[in-house]
């Protein structure tokens, strides 16, 4: 006999809807963002582009009659042929499979990016509004005092490293690492994307000159836009891995129907 299980209501309707809209919007924003990045695949710090001294640059070079892709990162240089700098017989920052559209078109990349930026912002505001009014953040995402004790945190880190996931009563709430990761994404990384994005707008700069200055200038804002996006990709990879390892059916079902199964005996 399989152990008895009970279903709990895990995610509210707003959370589920905004989660999937957010996931779709972020995917389009990432791929179209890399298309836009490819128009000038270099990053700088400060107000302006110091063309001779980018801190990141993807370039193509010739070696022995063959084109190679080179990625510069500060003083270091890496050969990245086929992925960065040169791929698909073409000089391009990111390869065609990572951009929207796959062919080179800054104009189309921008169309996708700004349309989905609006969707992303409106969806995010709905989520934030509902979370504040409905108590989702306080109830589900704020770590409990017990969860923040160093000993508890240490045990969670060990548990995660051993891929041992919470069962029974403990599975009724998010663990502390999970909560902290979600809070960092929701309240730091995603707002950073919007603010650094708006910092690059010359129209917004006129009304809010302090915005690019907050990040150290327009080119710094562009760099931080890229770094924040990279961290969101990192989060998404870990997030998906955790869903797969901790029970993808249960996890997916809970984010679609709202119901999450808990095995009662496995305390």
């Amino acid at each position, binding site marked *: 006999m399989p152990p008895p299980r009970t279903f709990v209501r895990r995610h509210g309707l707003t959370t589920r809807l905004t989660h999937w809209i957010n996931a779709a919007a972020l995917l389009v924003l990432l*791929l179209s963002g890399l298309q*836009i*990045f490819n*128009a*000038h695949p*270099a990053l*700088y710090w400060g*107000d*302006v*582009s*110091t*063309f*001779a001294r980018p801190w990141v640059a993807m370039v193509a070079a010739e070696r022995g009659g063959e084109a190679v892709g080179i990625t510069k990162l500060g003083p270091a240089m890496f050969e990245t042929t086929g992925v960065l700098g040169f791929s698909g017989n073409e000089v391009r920052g990111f390869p*065609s*499979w990572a951009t*929207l*559209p*796959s*062919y080179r*078109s*800054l*104009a*189309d990349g*921008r*169309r*996708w990016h*700004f*349309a989905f*930026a*609006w969707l992303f912002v409106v969806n995010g505001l709905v989520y934030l509004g509902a979370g504040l009014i409905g108590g989702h953040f306080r109830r589900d995402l704020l770590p409990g005092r017990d969860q923040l004790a160093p000993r508890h945190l240490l045990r969670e880190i060990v548990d995660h490293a051993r891929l041992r996931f919470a069962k029974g009563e403990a599975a009724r709430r998010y663990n502390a690492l999970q909560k902290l990761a979600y809070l960092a994404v929701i309240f730091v990384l995603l707002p950073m994307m919007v603010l650094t994005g*708006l910092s*690059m*707008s*010359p*129209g*917004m*700069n*006129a*009304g*809010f*000159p302090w915005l*690019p200055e907050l990040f150290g200038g*327009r*080119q710094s804002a*562009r760099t931080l836009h890229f770094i924040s996006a990279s961290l969101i990709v990192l989060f998404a990879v870990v997030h998906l891995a955790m869903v797969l390892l901790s029970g993808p059916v249960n996890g997916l079902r809970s984010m679609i129907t709202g119901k999450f199964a808990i095995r009662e005996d496995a305390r």
Partner: protein
Amino acid sequence: MIDRRRWLSGLAAAAMGALLAGCDKLTMNPVVQQGLAMAEGLTRRAQRLVVDRKALAQEFSPAEISPDFRANGSTAPGDPEYRALVEAGFADWKLVVDGLVERPLSLSLAELRAQPARTQITRHDCVEGWSAIGQWSGARLGPLLDRAGLKESARYIVFHCADTLDPNAPAALGRYYESIDLIDAYHPQSILAYDMNGAPLAVKHGAPLRLRVERQLGYKHAKYVMRIEAVADLAGIGGGKGGFWEDRGYEWYAGI
């Protein structure tokens, strides 16, 4: 085992390929394009709502001027009429102001330099993503338009340029042009610049005259301006979208 792995990776590659082709097909679909393009109007309205019409673009100190200001688009126009102007040191050059105006003008560089002027050190943001800071001096567009006297029906100011940027396109589409509305035309920082960093504009930066419309991206700052036309409607000019790059899919409102 190896067969299965190869089969699986083949399947993954095929799925990926289909997904990419699907995305490209979506991108080229006119209905999708139209839907995505709605964001432009939304962005324009939102920015105009939260940013004052007269709000100035950020200005910088002389120490911040970029030593390596990049030139994009045409950098050495090959158009014979333009070459002749360069050879003559722009002595015969005239700026024409016409269209929906009461008093069409034809101004030499000396006459333009006698117009109400403004000098500003601003950041130029290219649509590609890079930025550079430069100092610009030029005739303010607003007083110039007032001198010509805009008619009631004028809604946009079109800038016709000397350079052919796309020699493969029919002449009307290959020649550079741009347009802005009256809000931007009358903005205090909108100038027709004849000097850059204290010296007459170099050919690569649009000699003898280029537009500066500081709250928008670089491609709006038309170089090699020959004629300014006041119009009621952008249809019928070039490809009808209001600019060389706009005709090629870029936003007319380039405030982001």
